């Protein structure tokens, strides 16, 4: 089998780290960091995901094909969220900058 046998101790260490990060993220929620509460929560969640993917799912020992599929999946998710949000967040912007309004030709319908 291509996957090497990982010592139990490694899995236990990763588990302890995951528990630590869970306690950390819960604790940070009780401290007022303003917008950085969200940033911290997502950063910790991302770190936990990396631990699970690399150690429990064994991507550490996987070949390039599995890695490229995984990266492609997350890249797609990033596109989905980035383009959807950029659409919604710019909908309220005016079609023509206000300073142009006196001289600008009529805009297309």
């Amino acid at each position, binding site marked *: 089998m291509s996957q090497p046998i990982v010592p139990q101790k490694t899995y236990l260490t990763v588990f302890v780290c995951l528990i630590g990060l869970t*306690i950390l993220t819960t604790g940070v929620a009780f401290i007022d960091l303003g917008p950085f509460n969200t940033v911290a*929560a997502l950063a910790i969640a991302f770190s936990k995901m990396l631990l*699970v993917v690399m150690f429990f799912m064994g991507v550490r020992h996987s070949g390039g094909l599995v890695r490229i*599929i995984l990266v492609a999946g997350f890249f797609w998710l990033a596109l*989905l969220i980035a383009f959807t949000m950029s659409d919604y967040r710019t909908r309220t912007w005016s079609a023509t900058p206000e300073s142009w309004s006196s001289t600008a030709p009529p805009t297309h319908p």
Partner: protein
Amino acid sequence: MRTPLWRQPVTDAEAHAQHAGLAHQFEDLEQQQEADALGIWIFLVTEIMFFGGLFAAYAIYRWLYFGAFQGGSHVLDIRLGAANTIVLLASSLTMALSVRSAQTGNRRALVLFLIATMILGGIFLGVKAYEYDQKFVEHVVPSLDWAPEGETLALLAPGGLGHAQIYFFFYFAMTGLHALHMIIGMGLLLWLVFRAQKYSFTPHYFAPVEVVGLYWHFVDIVWIFLFPLLYLIGGRY
């Protein structure tokens, strides 16, 4: 009816000598194992897209109605959410140890770790069921039982009660889809226990254990994101 792949008689004498778990279209077990792993990874990418739609919709509404989402998040019990996170992480640990036991050919440990994973998954679902029940007690189930009062109302009112309903729609849709994945995973684990009892797995052939393991870890990762996104919005100070 078609015989499942793993039960098909292997005609090739060499392959048979190697292992009965080898399906005829593969050269050897290693190639089969790589194909199995690649298949589940592609499936998991489609799952990322499946949940991704919900996460994207969540991102939009959380941005539009942040106050309502913050209020809704404060109605949830953070202790239950955190405890369930730890239970699910523990189940991922036992799942990883199940795969390891299959690798080392320790059938007894494999069965015990699989059962431990199922028990932890069951605890998670039990706590989730209790939380769902609490939502009915607090009357914060959108459409079905929406009449928040008292303390709950005080938390939800600043963000707007209508928008708070959107938060709870997301809460039920996202945790519900996640719980459905858990229930499917528990069924798969039960199937693995039966197969392990029948000596189906060897250190050279345990792809089903590995594949279910990857699925289980994926479901764990979804919860790793759901916990901060649903329970910890904008802090609890």
